[in-house]
């Protein structure tokens, strides 16, 4: 338990120390690179904005991610169970995934003018469903036929086989993908908040820091984003422990 908390905390302190040292040794002014000691005043000065905008970023990311989980799982089931669907959808999916999402921000901003919450959630969703769909699809299509046969030979329906075997067996892959997707969803949210700012979210706070030449604020936003990302990631890890803990082998 000591190691689980103390070691990560120590590594963060070392990181901050090296960062401070780097800025101090180079004699950089804080408009070139802010140092960790500049951050607490920035956080304190804008504490209300951090809470409000941090919450805006967080809920829109989580809603987008939830949509991605539902849609990605359904899509994964389709490409996992049907060869035809797999052959038909893979090129489209890969193509869609390859399009840099920054280029889509103006597109959806024009499509749904003024719907900033909707646009942000949509982007978080679009950027994060792909890994979920692919991993669920691969998990299902690589299910060994014997697993299916032990229940099919008893006359079990496809739905029963999915619920009792395919779904739980795919959970470890699903959670692996969800960790990637959670990080991606954050990128999507911030992309919209920065490229198409409507004064909402940490991305907008970052943008206003940039406009006003408030560099400590910009760095403070980056740190806040990192903290939110860590929180979301460990929320997924927590769920994984509950639902797919069996996949973890005892150490040694």
């Amino acid at each position: 338990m000591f190691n689980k908390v103390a070691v990560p905390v120590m590594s963060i302190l070392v990181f901050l120390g090296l960062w401070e040292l780097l800025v101090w040794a180079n004699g950089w002014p804080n408009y070139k690179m802010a140092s960790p000691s500049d951050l607490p005043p920035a956080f304190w000065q804008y504490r209300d904005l951090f809470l409000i905008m941090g919450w805006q970023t967080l809920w829109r990311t989580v809603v987008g991610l939830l949509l991605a989980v539902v849609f990605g799982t359904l899509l994964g089931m389709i490409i996992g169970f049907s060869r035809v669907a797999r052959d038909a959808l893979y090129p489209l999916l890969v193509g869609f995934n390859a399009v840099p999402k920054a280029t889509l921000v103006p597109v959806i901003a024009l499509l749904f003018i003024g719907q900033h919450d909707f646009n942000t959630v949509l982007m978080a969703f679009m950027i994060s469903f792909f890994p979920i769909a692919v991993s669920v699809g691969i998990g299902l299509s690589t299910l060994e036929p014997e697993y299916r046969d032990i229940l099919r030979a008893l006359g079990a329906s496809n739905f029963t086989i999915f619920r009792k075997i395919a779904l739980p067996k795919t959970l470890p892959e699903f959670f692996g993908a969800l960790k990637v997707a959670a990080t991606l969803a954050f990128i999507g949210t911030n992309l919209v908040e920065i490229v198409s700012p409507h004064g909402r979210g940490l991305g907008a706070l970052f943008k206003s820091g940039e406009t006003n030449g408030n560099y400590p604020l910009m760095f403070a936003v980056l740190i806040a984003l990192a903290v939110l990302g860590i929180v979301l990631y460990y929320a997924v890890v927590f769920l994984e422990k509950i639902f797919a803990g069996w996949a973890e082998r005892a150490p040694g």
Partner: protein
Amino acid sequence: MGGPDRTGGIEIENLIEIKGVKHAYATASGPLPVLDGLDVAVPKGTFAAVVGPSGCGKSTLTRLVAGLMKPDEGQVYLHGELVKGPRKTVGMAFQNPVLLEWRTILENVILPLEIVATRMSRADRVARAMDLLDMVGLTGFENKRPSELSGGMRQRASLCRSLVHKPEVLIMDEPFGALDAFTREDLWQTMRDLRRAEPFTTVLITHDLRESVFLGDQVIVLSGRPARTQYVMPVDLPEDRTLDVLYTPKVADMLHILRDQIKIAQGRHEGAH
């Protein structure tokens, strides 16, 4: 068709009857015939061991009996009834024990009951599973995960799972193939003891001729692909065999005959080179 078979005036009910089955798989380079004239009759309560060269369609045979697929030609009967699809009275075991990693051993064994005995109480299910686990020597391991057990123990658990719903027919596709020789012999004896305790009719696919003679009431040799029934050997040995029987001259002779039949099936007749 099917049903009782008159052999020398004695009526024997064949629980499993396969008549003139032919089957081909569609492949990229045209149809690939795997079965071509398969005839198998397994009287109720007996044990049929099926041997044959690699890739001769033995696994197709198990899927036919389980009702997981239909043959292009010919018929498969269970109880004199044409097999049209899966039925709850079949149990299957494979070389890969396919235990569910997220369930304990006990919950793995109970799985078929969740499908075929939906009204059975939880206590009855547990009692039935524990009985079987006891018979195969897994008492005390019921709350372990499959990954905590050895290969032989996993296969024992898999056997329990295939028998937990008291199937009429047990279909085994090389269940002991991946085990080391000593573990395999242990499992042969477990299998023999299970047969004494539970009434079921068995089709065992195997590569091991000693296994086929030790466990079987008849040994069926299939020819190379496309497979037909090439040779049937009745195994005339006492019911409760011990491993010693494998070292008797009688069994040595039987193994010799089977060995020759396999060579013919492989197209490598003695002295052909």
